Every structure is written in C-alpha cells, then in structure tokens.
C-alpha cells in the first residue's frame, strides 16, 4: 500500500433515543505519507466523526457499521492494520493512538487538564509509547516545547494550562500530539477558536513541523481560507458523503460540485465589489410589516444627518486584587478601554474589529450602561436631542433603553430555553408596556416574518431551531422595540459559514429597510468588511485606526492593522499567507512595534488625521511622512 491511510466505504452510525442516525455514509478517501489533506464541511457533515473513527475514540453511542480504515504503521515497518476492525481499547489500538496517529482539538482550554502541569500531560504520551527515563523524558518535553515556540521551555514544563495564553495552550496541545513523532497528525479545527494572527502562527507551526518530521496532516476545517493555505489535497464532505475530492488546484480552480461552488460564494472576502452580495446556500425571504415600519418621525426642521452615537474619551480599567483581607494587598490595574472615541452617523454601520481581550465588548457594555466607565462621555442623539447617556439617572433610563438594543454572540445561551419563541420575542414589549396583548401578538408575528421565520413556529422552544435560526430570533427580539441603534456583538461568530452569509444579508437588508444604525463588533475582518461602512480597529483598549471600509483594507496605515490584514487567510491560491511574518510569540508585543506605532506606557500617542475620514494612532509629534511611507 502506497498510502499511509486508506479509508474504504466507511459507515458510522449513532444510536440515539429515537433510533439510529448514520453520520458517515460510505466515505472513501486516502492520505499519502507526508501530505496534507483537508477535510472540509459544515458542522454535522461528519468530518469530526471520521477523525474519531481513525483515532478509535468514537463516543459510546457511535459504531462503525462497515468499511475499513487501513493504516500502514511505519512503527511496524508499514505492516497494514485495519483500524475499523480493532477494538478501541485493545493494546494494539492504544499503541497506534498517540504513538503513530495523534490529534489536536479545537478548544485548547478544555482539551487540557487543569490539574496537571503541561509538562506532565505532554510527557505522559511519551512515557506511554516510548521507553524513556524520567530525566530524559523531561529533556524531550523541553525540546518539544522549544520546537513549538515556547519562549521559556524549561519554565513552561511546570506551568498549568490556565497560566498560558490561548495561543500558547494550542502550542502545548500540538507539542503533546507530536511528542512521539507520529506518522499522521489529525488537526480538528485547530485554529477556529483563535484570533487571526495567532491562527496564522499556528498554521505556520504545523507546516514547519510537518516538514521537519515528515508526517502527514489531516486538517479538518470549515474555513476555505485555511484550506487554500495549507492543504495539498481536499475532500469536501456534505451530510456524511464525499461531494468532491482532488488536489487543491483542481478544487479551487475547477470546483465541479454545486455545493462547493456555493460554499465559495458564501464566504465574505476582501475582493468583493461595492454592493456585491453574498450568495447563501439557502436564501431566506423576509417581509416587513406595517407595525414595524411605522416609526416615530423626526421632528420638523431637525437636522437628520447627525451622529446617532458619539463616544468620547471612554476609559475603563479593572483592578485585580491578589489577596483577600488581612493580607498584603497587591492591586494590579488592567486598562480594558483606553481613551476610546468614535461617532456613528445615522443609518451607518460602524464596524469595531479587534482580537479577543482588546476591549471591544467592554465598549459595548459601557454604551448599554451595563458597566460604568472611569472617564468619558457617551452622547446619544434622540431625534435631534443630544442626551448624555452616562448622566441619565437610573430611573429615567427606561424610555432610552428601547432606543438601543443588542444582539449577542452565542445564540445558544442568549435565549431562555424554558421560554417559547413567542414569549422570548414578546418579553421586551411586556417590559416596556407596549400595546395591548393582541397588538403584541400581532407584532410578534410580524417580527417573525421580518427575520424570515414562519409565525407557526412561535410555540416552539429555542432548542428546536438551528444556530442561524436562533440568531434570527435574537435579532427579532432586539427589533421588537423598534430601536434606532443596534449593537451587534459578534453576531455571526458562532455560525457556520453557509449560515453566516444568510444572517449577514439579513442584517444588511434590515438596516436599509428600517433605517437602523449599527455598531457591529467582530474579530472577523472579512465579515466586518462586508457589513460596515466605516471600521475602527481596536488593540489593547485603544482605537488604533479608523477609516471608511474601502480605505482601511486597501490602504492600512497602522502597523497593527497591517499585521491583522496580512494574517487573514484568503480562499485563493494566488494569494497565500506570507508565513515568514508570523510565528514568533511576543512578536505581537505593542511596545516593540516600529515607531511611530509602538504602544505602551512609555509611548504617548495621539490620533492623526490623514484626510478622508482616515485617522490613525501614532506617537505624538510624528510627521505625516513617517505615517504614510
């Protein structure tokens, strides 16, 4: 057998309460030694089930019903074993698992034990499969940590997972998978939970290590951008069946299957022409209703071209206390939001981009008055009347609450599972005592149609809806009070790419139809690029650059913005990531960025006006020449 792994007609079944479900329906594929194969598909397509079958770690309910998984184990000089025929807990299978084939999971935090040092967890695999002594094992672990880019490998051996950043945790996971130098590494969405720049660094790491160890990689992902940058062969999966497979060039240049072609059209990318629309796999139709369309008019003679929201000099810091009372106090202050100012014009969508922990959600919470800032003002223009939101007494806040509403990231946890959809959408109307019960019921039906859902589903509970549908229910709830400003905090991050396009189009259409103003928060640059008119980039609590969308992505000025954009993987073979720019952890330390963009306590900086509404943060006194080289 020339292949490392050959899967023939694999079928996997899951026993559920109401019978069995076939998750994998006769999949055949192969992985050649040293090659990278990408397994692409939406959630529920069966891609993770295939990985679990190869590893022999299917959940209890799952069972391989037929087919074979042939593995030419190099440890046994290429002797071929059929993994599908092995008992998952047999000695033979355990030797393969972790020794010859290993896996990296999506969520590095939950995949590592909180009770054991990472050195212990990495070394465990080594001691299981290789006959090494204690001291030698520690050396090997240290070397491996160094290889995956830990800045201080000797110290990291004794660290716990919660002491590490997300990127380092994933590096530790990779070290754990590679410690026995396996012939095949399965990477199950290894970068989905990470920020773009860390994603680029991890992809580079996997590529480098693959070259060094000569191992094959099975990359499971839904992100075609990642696929284009790392894979040699691609297998596209849909509902447990292989839709299309071939080399990367075949797949990207000549996608044959309609599913793949549709998937490519559903992903937002930077080359979209102004006004170009995404084509979702399943288009939704919606209609507005008379009750939603009637909005309180603006008073006569008032200038309607105003800033609906003006945020000025917002600053918020959190304090972390090290010790409780009776002990010495060690107080550390973390500045989450640092002198943030921006305006949102009426009918505009302002995108707020930044990596996790940059303070973008804190800003939204301050605007909603969920947290109180240390300094700064938030001015809301209520139909010609400027209101200082932070100065409004609590008991007068109620009527203003209807004007600003929020859509949350997680459609799972933001809807009460014990309330019907009807109750969920109606709740704001009850709280604000809007209309009679029959009017409220009518309004709820209109809202359902507005987000493209059938009003007949109103009696159902949230769990009977898919993620995308749930997010639309959340949107309907936010629109129930006919707000002027909608704050959307990562509204599509939890959705599959195919659903994402659908929801994004709905957001765009409703903005136009209802004249809404959006603050759209996301870490995904392509998504923000698709929906926003102007974009603000946030880093370490500060806005580093703010510009109209066509300017920001074509002509980024700030070092951080440039880094961020360079890290986005394109689903395009002609524009691969320049991996040489990434990889060194600590390379994203703002203090060490080239002047005049270095940030930190020793670098006083200010916003510079570059014209055409393009502002950038730079060291005080920097010249225009320095900025635009």
């Amino acid at each position, binding site marked *: 057998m020339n292949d490392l792994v050959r899967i023939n007609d694999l079928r996997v079944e899951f026993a559920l309460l109401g019978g069995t479900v076939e998750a994998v329906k006769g999949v055949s594929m192969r992985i050649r030694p040293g090659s990278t194969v990408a397994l692409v598909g939406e959630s529920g397509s069966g891609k993770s089930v295939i990985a679990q079958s190869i*590893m022999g*770690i299917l959940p209890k309910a799952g069972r391989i019903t037929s087919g074979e998984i042939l593995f030419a184990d190099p440890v046994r000089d290429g002797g071929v074993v059929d993994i599908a025929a092995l008992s998952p*807990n047999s000695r033979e299978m*355990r*030797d*393969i*698992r*972790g*020794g010859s084939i*290993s*896996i990296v*999971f999506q*969520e590095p935090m*939950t*995949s*590592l*034990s*909180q*009770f*054991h*040092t990472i050195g212990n967890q990495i070394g*465990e*695999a080594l001691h*299981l*499969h290789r006959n090494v002594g204690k001291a030698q094992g520690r050396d090997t672990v240290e070397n491996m940590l160094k290889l995956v880019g830990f800045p201080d490998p000797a110290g990291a051996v004794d660290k*716990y997972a*919660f*002491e590490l950043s997300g990127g380092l945790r994933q590096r530790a*996971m990779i070290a*754990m998978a590679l410690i026995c130098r396996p012939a095949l590494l399965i990477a199950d969405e290894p970068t989905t939970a990470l920020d773009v720049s860390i994603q680029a660094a991890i992809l580079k790491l996997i590529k480098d290590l693959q070259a060094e160890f000569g191992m094959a990689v099975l990359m499971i992902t839904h992100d075609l951008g990642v696929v284009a940058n790392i894979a040699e062969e691609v297998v596209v999966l849909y509902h447990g069946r292989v839709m299309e497979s071939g080399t990367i060039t075949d797949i990207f240049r000549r996608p044959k299957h309609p599913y793949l072609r549709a998937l490519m059209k559903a992903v937002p990318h930077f080359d979209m022409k102004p006004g170009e629309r995404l084509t979702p796999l399943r288009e939704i139709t919606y209609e507005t209703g008379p009750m939603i369309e009637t909005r309180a008019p603006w008073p006569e003679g008032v200038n309607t071209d105003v800033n609906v929201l003006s945020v000025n000099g917002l600053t918020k810091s*959190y304090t*972390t*206390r*090290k*010790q*409780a009372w*009776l*002990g010495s106090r060690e107080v550390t202050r973390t500045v989450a939001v640092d002198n943030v100012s921006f305006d949102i014009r009426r009918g505009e969508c302002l995108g707020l981009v930044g990596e996790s922990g940059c303070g973008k959600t804190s800003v939204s919470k301050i605007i909603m008055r969920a947290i109180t800032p240390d300094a700064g003002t938030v001015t809301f223009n209520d139909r010609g009347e400027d209101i200082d939101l932070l100065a409004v007494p609590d008991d007068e806040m109620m009527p203003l609450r209807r004007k600003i509403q929020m859509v949350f990231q997680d459609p799972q946890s933001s809807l009460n599972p014990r309330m019907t959809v009807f109750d969920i959408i109606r709740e704001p109307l009850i709280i604000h005592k809007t209309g009679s019960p029959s009017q409220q019921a009518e309004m709820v039906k209109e809202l359902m149609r507005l987000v493209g859902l059938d009003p007949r589903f109103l009696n159902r509970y949230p769990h009977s809806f898919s993620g995308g549908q749930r997010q639309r229910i959340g949107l309907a709830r936010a629109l129930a009070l006919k707000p002027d400003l909608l704050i959307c905090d990562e509204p599509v991050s939890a959705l599959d790419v195919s659903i994402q396009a659908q929801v994004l189009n709905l957001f765009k259409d409703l903005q136009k139809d209802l004249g809404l103003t959006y603050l759209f928060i996301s870490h995904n640059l392509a998504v923000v690029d698709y929906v926003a008119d102007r974009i603000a980039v946030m880093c370490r609590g500060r806005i580093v650059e703010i510009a109209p969308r066509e300017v920001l992505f074509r002509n980024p000025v700030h070092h951080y913005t440039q880094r961020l954009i360079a890290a986005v993987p394109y689903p395009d073979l002609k524009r691969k990531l320049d991996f040489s720019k990434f990889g060194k952890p600590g390379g994203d330390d703002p203090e060490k960025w080239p002047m005049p963009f270095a940030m930190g306590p020793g670098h006083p900086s200010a916003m510079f006006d570059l014209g055409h509404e393009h502002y950038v943060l730079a060291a005080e006194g920097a010249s225009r020449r320095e900025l635009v080289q």
Partner: protein
Amino acid sequence: MIGYVIRRILIMIPTLLAISMIVFIIIELPPGDYLESYVAELQAQGESVDPQEIQFLREQYGFDESPVQRYLRWVGGMLQGDFGYSFEYRLPVSDVVGDRLFLTIVVSMATIIFTWVIAFPIGIYSATHQYSWGDYGLTFIGLLGLATPNFLLALILLYFANVTFGTSIGGLMDPKYIDQPWSVDKALSVLEHLWIPVVVIGTAGTAGMIRRLRANLLDELQKQYVVTARAKGLPPGRALVKYPLRSALNFFVADIGTLLPSVISGAELVAVVLSLPTTGPILITALQSQDMYLAGSFLMFLATLTVVGVLISDLLLAWLDPRIRLAGGASR
C-alpha cells in the same frame, strides 16, 4: 501558602466568637433557668426544697448576674480550659464529657471512612456504567438507604446482631467493660459493637454521596480533556483515575467541611435509640433540663468541629487544585 494558612486560622477566631454568642443566646432564650426547672421537678415529685440551698446555688453560679457577665464568665472559662459545671451530673463538664467525646470521635471517624469506602467505588461504577442494570440496581439500593428512617434501621440491625452474633443490645461495648480502664478486650468489644451505629448513621450519607459523586463524575467524563487522554493512548482505567476522578475529587474534599457536623448531629437520635455512650444523648438531656454549661460546651464543640472541618477542606482544596493555589484571590 503559609500566609494563607495563618490568615485562615486567624479568621477562625472571630467566627468562633460569633458562634459562642449565638449559642449563648439560644441557651438563654427559653424562660427560666436550670434551678427553676430543678425546683419545679422536685416539687412535682413531692419533695421539699430548701430555699436556702437554692439561694446558695444561685449566688455560687452567678444566676443573678446579668447575661453579659455570665457570657463573659463562660467564654473566659472556656479559654482557660474550664468548661463549667454540670448541674445535672454535679460534676465538671469536662469529666462528664471526657470518655464520651472520645467515643463520639471514634464513631464519627468510622462512619466517615465507611461512607467513603462504600460510596467511592459505587459512585465510580455508576458513572462509568451509566444507565446499565448495575447503575439502576445500585441507585435503587442507595435510594432505599436514603429513604429508610435511621432509627428503624437501627432497631432491625440490633435485633439481627443479637440473634445472629449474640452481640449485647445497645451501647458501644459489652456492659462488663463500662467504667473499666481501657484494655485490648475492651477495644475489641467496642469494635464488635461499632459497626451497627456506623452502618446506621452512614447509610443516608453514603447514598447521598454516591449520587453526588456519580453526577460530578458524569459531568467530568463528558469533557474534552478526557478525550485528549484517550487520544494519547492511555488505558481507560488510568485515564479515568488521573483526569476526571481527580476533578471530581474537588467536591469530595469540599464535602469534608459539612460532613463532620452532619455526621455528629445526625447521630444524636440514633445514639438515643442505640443508647450509645456518645455525646448526642447528653446534649439532648442537657438542653431539656437547661443544664447551660454542659449544653453550651457541647454546642461549642460542634461548632469548632465544623470550623476546623471547613478549614481542613479548604487547605486540602488549595493543595489539590492548582487553580485555587495559583490564581486564588484574583477577581474582578
């Protein structure tokens, strides 16, 4: 870590002080005092009472002082190791309690160990074999144990122990060893009698612990890091013990704090039924007859045990769980 321990021990002082106040107030709450109920009892039995003797006792034990003065006298005495005087027994409290305290600790410790030894394997089995016949059967037995009244179980066990093994009814030792100095035979006799109260007191706690261990372990078994452990090629048994069980231990340790007082206070009724020479029955009679120093000392003893139990469990938790040890106190 040392600073943490010292701080925790220092915090115990105000806690115990507050508890002593509450205990004192509760004992003072019923109208009258020991001497009044003593006089009433004598009169009910038709005996004459010497008013001068009563007056003498009143002065001697400060019944006429203000509650604050009596409280201070009580607490001050306890600090010097003087727990006061039991009117009922006409002996210093420490003499009344002495042996019983030791036996109470023996019974309690044995019960805790019994609970753990039974609950641990059953809980693990139930969680790893969820919805199997074994799980259902053990759950059923556990629920039976939880639902059976303790005193009933005590009577049944006493009967069978007497009929089958010829163990003497009631008590923690054969009657001939009572008030005898400790010897090997006496200790053996205690062991022979010990199992009945241990089983009786332990059943309910065991059943509860099985359910909690099962639930905790089931949660942990779902977690991704268990899959990671399996993916490394770790044999199932070792993977179970090293990862999910270790996490499930947290609740187990946190339980110690509440286990001590519940075992001791839950044992009172059983102790009466089995006429055990432990502290429970004395506490009940002392509260009934308003023998305040005896009752107060007992309650303080229970409170101290609770506080110490919580301290032990907190220290163990900090030692076991690196998140508490290293990230402790960091909050927003």
